[in-house]
Each structure stands twice: as structure tokens, then as C-alpha cells.
């Protein structure tokens, strides 16, 4: 029988505030991205598949300067580590390494072969030429050589949730979780001169402009903001909130800004919207690429910086990350077998299978 106190409690908690509409839209967007169609398989196999999905294999693929040579094995959860098997990769030229965070564990591959494997991190980003990798470890931002040797460590007093190393290597923008909010900071590439840039931001990876003098981030209100380090100024990009992703082009100052229902490309004072819900987007060999989800495939669409279409292709798979040189697709069947496939563009030639689990 309900007591007077219990009735008061029910009444009290019945008038809790309502969530903001914007937060709901953003959360829906994130949740749909995490949705993966289950393979029509036996229960055990299906469980394995979704264990794989839950770990969000590709979410942490460091979207910085990726592409690679070497071999990479990534292991999940409690699975027993497998011996590292180095393989030669035929990957795009002009690239130096891959950093992948899988289920909270970092793997780094460079031209010299496999380097780090399974280091627990919260986020990671490669420096230019893959000379170093910056990673959130515990409550520190740590810069390491690809073999794991620490160059420096900086205490953050919170978990680092996103890292972006500037193209010139001179600075690192990172987001750290503080009590009740996320703080955007910038530190020099040598681990010195750490400073706060914004006291409340969203957990969206910052993106550096090609000249390393400015970067874009998403403020607490969901607006895309460009912070100019030279002038210590910030400008709000005129795109409706909530913004869910930002990506400067690797050359020039074009920028792609992701919303829930499409991507705006801002290029030379012009703005073009590419409609559609996408799983991932980024700049790929100088073109904007977005990936539209399908039932058992993805559609990779390519655009010029002006927003003009430059073709598309279909690829079997269920999840994708776009990096400067690669599109990463998680393939349905391979998912069951525990594999992720890296693809180059154009036309989706398979480059490398990553054995997972």
C-alpha cells in the first residue's frame, strides 16, 4: 500500500523537466548510427555479431591522417589475444599510418608494420607523418611514438573524449570531460602551453583547417564555431544547430558541416547542402565523401568542394568511417566472421581486411 511519502515521491518525480528537442534529435541520430542489422544467423553467432557491433569497431578510427602500410589485428573484450601476424599492405601512397581505437583499445600501424596493439585509451589521433600518436589514457593526454615510447604526458583531470592533431603538428585540440560539461583545450605539440578554448562544448571531434591556424568545433548550443588561433577570435558558422560533425578540407578552407538531415559544404563564400542522413562523412582524396546507409550496403557519394556530385558507388557493409585516404566499411558477412574491411576509393577496391576478435 502506498504511503503518503511514496505518493509525494511519485508526484515529485512526475514533474521532472522535459528533454530539449535538440538533444533528442542528436541522440536519435547517434542511436541510428549505432544500429546494425543482425545477420540471419544462429543465436550464438548473432550474439557474436552484436558483441562486435556493440564495441563500435569503427567509431574510434582516428579520422586524422589515416591510410597505411602494415598489419593490424584488433581484439575485443575478453577474447584471448591472438599473435600478431604482420602482412604487407598495398595502400595509397603518401600516407604514413593508421590509428584505430576499437572497443577502447588503440592499435597503431605505420609503414614499418604493426606497432601498438590493445592499449586502453579513450581517444586517439595521429600526428602528421604518423611520428606520434596522441591518446587519452586515464586522466592524461599522452603523446607516444608508434612503438609506445612516451614523449610526454599532460594531466587532464578528466577523460579525454576527442583529439585532433593539427596538420602541421604544432598543436593538438582536445576535449576533456569535466564535472558536468566538456571542455575544449589546445596544447602545443610538445606537450606545453595547455589552454582552455571553450568551457562547454559538445563531444564532436574538432577539425583543423589546412593551415593549422584555426579549427572548427561544436559549441554547447550545437553551433559550429571556427576558432582562429592567430586572432584569438571565433566565428559561428551560419548553419542551423544542432551540428553533429565538422570537417575542414585537407587543402584550402572549405568546410563540411554535418546536420541531422544532411551536410552543408561551405566553399569560397558559397554554401551547398547535400541532403540525406549519413553514417559518416569526410574528405577523401580532396573530395567530400558521405556514406548513406542501406539495408545491407552503403552508398558512398563523392562531391567536389563546391558540392557538385562526382559520382557514387555501392558497397556491401553496415558501417563506415571516412578518412583522408580510406573509406572503412564493416561488412555484414565479414562481420560475422569477425572482420572489418578497409576500402580505398574510387570504386571500393578492397585494400585490407582487419581480423577482429
Amino acid at each position: 500500500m502506498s504511503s503518503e511519502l511514496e505518493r509525494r515521491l511519485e508526484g515529485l518525480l512526475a514533474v521532472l523537466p522535459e528533454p530539449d528537442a535538440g538533444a533528442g534529435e542528436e541522440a536519435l541520430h547517434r542511436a541510428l548510427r549505432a544500429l546494425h542489422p543482425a545477420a540471419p544467423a544462429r543465436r550464438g553467432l548473432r550474439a557474436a555479431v552484436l558483441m562486435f557491433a556493440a564495441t563500435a569497431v569503427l567509431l574510434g578510427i582516428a579520422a586524422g591522417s589515416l591510410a597505411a602500410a602494415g598489419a593490424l589485428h584488433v581484439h575485443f573484450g575478453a577474447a584471448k589475444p591472438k599473435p600478431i601476424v604482420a602482412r604487407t599492405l598495398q595502400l595509397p601512397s603518401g600516407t604514413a599510418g593508421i590509428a584505430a581505437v576499437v572497443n577502447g583499445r588503440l592499435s597503431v600501424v605505420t609503414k614499418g608494420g604493426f606497432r601498438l596493439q590493445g592499449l586502453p585509451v579513450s581517444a586517439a589521433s595521429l600526428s602528421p607523418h604518423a611520428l606520434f600518436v596522441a591518446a587519452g589514457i586515464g586522466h592524461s593526454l599522452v603523446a607516444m611514438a608508434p612503438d609506445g615510447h612516451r614523449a610526454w604526458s599532460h594531466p587532464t583531470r578528466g577523460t579525454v573524449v576527442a583529439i585532433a592533431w593539427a596538420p602541421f603538428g604544432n598543436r593538438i585540440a582536445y576535449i576533456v570531460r569535466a564535472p558536468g560539461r566538456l571542455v575544449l583545450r589546445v596544447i602545443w605539440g610538445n606537450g606545453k602551453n595547455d589552454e582552455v578554448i571553450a568551457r562547454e562544448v559538445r563531444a564532436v571531434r574538432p577539425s583543423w583547417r589546412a593551415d593549422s591556424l584555426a579549427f572548427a568545433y561544436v559549441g554547447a548550443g550545437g553551433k559550429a564555431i571556427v576558432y582562429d588561433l592567430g586572432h584569438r577570435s571565433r566565428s559561428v558558422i551560419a548553419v542551423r544547430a544542432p551540428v553533429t560533425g565538422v570537417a575542414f578540407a585537407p587543402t584550402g578552407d572549405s568546410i563540411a558541416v554535418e546536420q541531422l538531415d544532411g551536410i552543408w559544404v561551405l566553399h569560397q563564400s558559397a554554401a551547398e547542402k547535400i541532403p540525406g542522413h549519413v553514417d559518416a562523412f569526410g574528405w577523401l582524396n580532396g573530395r567530400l565523401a558521405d556514406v548513406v546507409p542501406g539495408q545491407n550496403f552503403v552508398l558512398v557519394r563523392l562531391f567536389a568542394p563546391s558540392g557538385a556530385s562526382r559520382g557514387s558507388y555501392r558497397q556491401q557493409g553496415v558501417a563506415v568511417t571516412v578518412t583522408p585516404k580510406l573509406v572503412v566499411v564493416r561488412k555484414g558477412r565479414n562481420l560475422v566472421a569477425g572482420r572489418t574491411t578497409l576500402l580505398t576509393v574510387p570504386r571500393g577496391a578492397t585494400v585490407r581486411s582487419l581480423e577482429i576478435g
Partner: protein
Amino acid sequence: MREPSDRDLVRRARRGDREAAAALFRRYWRDAWRAAFAITGRRSLADDVAADGFERAFAALGRFDERRPFGPWLHRIVANRALDVLRAERRVSDEELPDTPDLAPVHASGDRSLLASVAELSLERRVVVVLRYGVGMTPKQIAEALDLPVGTVNSRLARSLEQLRESLEVEHVE
């Protein structure tokens, strides 16, 4: 037309039907967010926690046993995520962190004395109170959600009510 059941939506979502997944989200977002808010006491954390909860739930939908109700399973994920975040905050800071939620501003016209007392409950007690009286879960469901024995849940509820009564009595005396 009759609304599809949770089970139908879950089945379709597991096959990759985004419309079904979105319908499931809309059906539970408000409750999940309010549970997250009631536990964390902060809007920004509630946004993160509820979004994380859905993200994790959808990513793990294939492991979900369709014979069980979806709501409690989701709330379990959200509640555990909220606890993880709050515990991590306590570990992170050298300072005294706001262990109690800052609920008062949004309840200016509500039962403020009771609210203040709820806010004073320990995190473990507050969670069971929120799930029981805010989300409407049974002790058994809470036990499943938090991976606790039912007896522990009942005991925490009883002690919470006792603490709240004492707290309110003191307030009346004052």
C-alpha cells in the same frame, strides 16, 4: 490503426529498419532522459547519458532477448551509464563534487522540501528511488537493471524512505 508493440519494433529494428528504431527511440527517449536527469541532476549530463544509453542499446539490440520487455532493459543501460558517469566524476576531481543533483531550480513550485531530501540521498539510494517512483519500475525490474538482489533493492528503498521521513520530520521541527 494500432500502434506496433515494442516487440514488433525491436524485431524490425534488429533487421536494420531505421523507421522502427526511430519509433522505439521516440517511445522511450523522454523516460530515459528523465531517468538520467533524475539520477545525474544535470541537463548536460542527462543529454549525454540518455544518448549514450540509446546508442549502446541500439548497438546491442541483437543481443536483446525479445521475450523480455524493452523498457526495463533500456533503463538498465541508462541507469548504469548514469552511475558510471557520476562515479567517474567522483574519481576524477580533487575537489568536492556535487554528489547531489541540482534539481531545485526546475522545481521551484514543486515539493521543494522533499526534493531537497531526495537530493541528499546517496547515489545508490537515489537511483533506486528514481527508478521506483520516477520511472515506475518494480523492485524486481530495478534489481535486474542494476544487477542487484531484489532484497538489496527493497532494503535500499526502505532505508531511503526512512531517511526521507526523518529528513522531512527534522524540517518540520525546524
